[in-house]
């Protein structure tokens, strides 16, 4: 499925300074029964966000009206655990377009890239600077430029470059996905398939 193009994002950010945030927290398994990709945002961080009687937990950041924006800023090893793409869908469906962390789990990172959420890995130092800025002013804006591969704290002008391979960068800026690419080389694949032993 082609998705929204991503070039530059200028927005406030939501801080979640917890390490090892796993995909079971991002979207608990009991919400994986859907057969369509709709409504996952409602259950993003369900058990951190709501009590068992479905009342909101006031101390959780998504329930704090002070914070908003299209960037989620998570602690190291963000997205560890299951391969459920539903976790990335929940992040997207809630309204985030970018997750910043100092370290991502592999599959989650790949899933984000495949659906048009940009995972931005920054240094642990820069991550702390972002947290500090949000703490100081929750309305402070950040700029994530995919084109320049750079994230900037607009209030201070400090910025840091980030990595992404050219192929994925191209895909995201154009809103293409891997299947579009693979279908284009279908002939090669069919040829290759003839020679596989298994």
């Amino acid at each position, binding site marked *: 499925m082609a998705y929204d193009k991503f070039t530059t994002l200028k927005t406030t950010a939501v801080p979640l300074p917890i390490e090892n945030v796993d995909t079971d927290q991002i979207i608990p398994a009991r919400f994986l*029964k859907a057969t369509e990709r709709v409504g996952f945002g409602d259950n993003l961080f369900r058990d951190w966000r709501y009590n068992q009687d479905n009342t909101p937990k006031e101390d959780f950041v998504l329930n704090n009206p002070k914070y908003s924006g299209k960037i989620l800023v998570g602690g190291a090893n963000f997205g560890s655990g*299951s391969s459920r793409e539903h976790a990335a869908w929940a992040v997207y469906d809630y309204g985030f377009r970018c997750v910043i962390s100092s370290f991502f789990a592999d*599959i989650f990172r790949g899933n984000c890239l495949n659906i048009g959420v940009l995972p931005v890995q920054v240094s642990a130092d820069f991550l702390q600077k972002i947290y500090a800025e949000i703490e100081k002013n929750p309305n402070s804006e950040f700029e994530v430029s995919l084109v320049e591969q750079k994230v900037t704290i607009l209030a201070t002008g400090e910025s840091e470059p980030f990595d992404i391979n050219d*192929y994925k960068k191209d895909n995201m800026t154009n809103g293409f996905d891997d299947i579009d690419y*693979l279908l284009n080389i279908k002939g090669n694949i069919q040829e290759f398939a003839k020679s596989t032993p298994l």
Partner: protein
Amino acid sequence: MSAKKTLFDKVWDSHVVHQIENGPDVLFIDRHMVHEVTSPVAFLGLKSRGIGVMHPEKTFATADHNTPTINQHLPVADPLSANQLRMLEENANEYGISYWGLGHEKNGIVHVVGPEYGITQPGATIVCGDSHTSTHGAFGAIAFGIGTSEVEMVLATQCIMQPKPKSMRINITGGLQFGVTPKDVALFIISQLTTSGATGYFVEYAGDVFKNMSMEGRMTVCNLSIEMGARGGMIAPDEKTFHYVKDREFTPKGDDWNTAMNYWQTLYTDEEAEFDKELTFDGSQIEPMITYGTNPGMGMGISKDIPNASDVKGGEATYKKSLQYMKFGEGDSMIGKPIDFVFLGSCTNGRIEDFRAFASIVKGKQKADNVTAWLVPGSHQVESAIKEEGILDILTEAGFELREPGCSACLAMNDDKVPPGKLAVSTSNRNFEGRQGPGSRTLLASPLVAAAAAVTGKVTDPRELMEMETA
């Protein structure tokens, strides 16, 4: 002459259809396992693109994540689950994919039935929309979990786009102590590496400990590779592997077998091949393990005390939050903590060897009254073996019941949920907050530790019960 290659390089490189500069490789996939939870949106994607499945004969579907483990002959009561199962069946039928649904004799957890029927083979590339696909690496396959967009990709093109991971070799030398199982070996490695220590790597396990390990044990270890952040883990195939694979339904026969063997026998790491990272541990230092926190890296030898926050690497606040969730204190001993639930099962420890181990401890004893036990075979084949080997009688006499196959309390999508606040000793693979049900608290351990807890009602070193028997 060709460069020296690792086992991983050999399998990966021979499956690369196309390379993109500063981008991913296009990797051909030999086997695609599909289940009900991560596939419906992928099939919807195919429909909206107006394309079909390129190789239905390389695609295998089973229902396991979202299935009840009792009364499987009755219609599934939960309408959402029933709908998801029906979707898989319809999609499998529509695209000509073999489907082992609920009640089918071959039904079971995807990573248990794959090897059982010979779908899993050395040197193959295997993917599934489940992170524990790494299990199949036990056969010298490259096997890893994928997201739903990738499931769609493989259905559509039999390929996946992945940057080649870095390589790591983990050697475990020497022998294992009495009472130490493959699960303990894996939990030990994760406790040393943390849950992100192998992120970005594909791991090869080498050394005597793995050479001497059964195929079931190797599957347990490879299964848990993802819990150290690795994309997957693998073990070079040997005689044990070939013996296991031979004569299974989907393995090559006759001349094809010989051709396959010719390939499989080249699957080892060349002597001078280099890894990006190499670690070595002494197997004799490993104890039966147990976890005390909310990720699989928070594990320790069962006789040890919970480390102080100041002594652990990484975020102190997160560590404290984790212990608070578990209702444990720094410096606590795990031994003697009263438990409420025991779960034996999952693609980590739901195979016949695991039931044998469990039975070896509970034999002649009684389930503790305070414990609810869910014993869930990984497949019907495991279930039959439990019955045929007389293990069911041992379990029944000890006050246990056997459930029907499925993922069950591993991810608690069905009714097998540990209630809020309750403490479970579980042979599965994740102790994340709420993994086994909202508010549930999970201790990961081997089938022996689970059995010892089930009969004593508290965390118990299984070696005590084993020694009593041999004394």
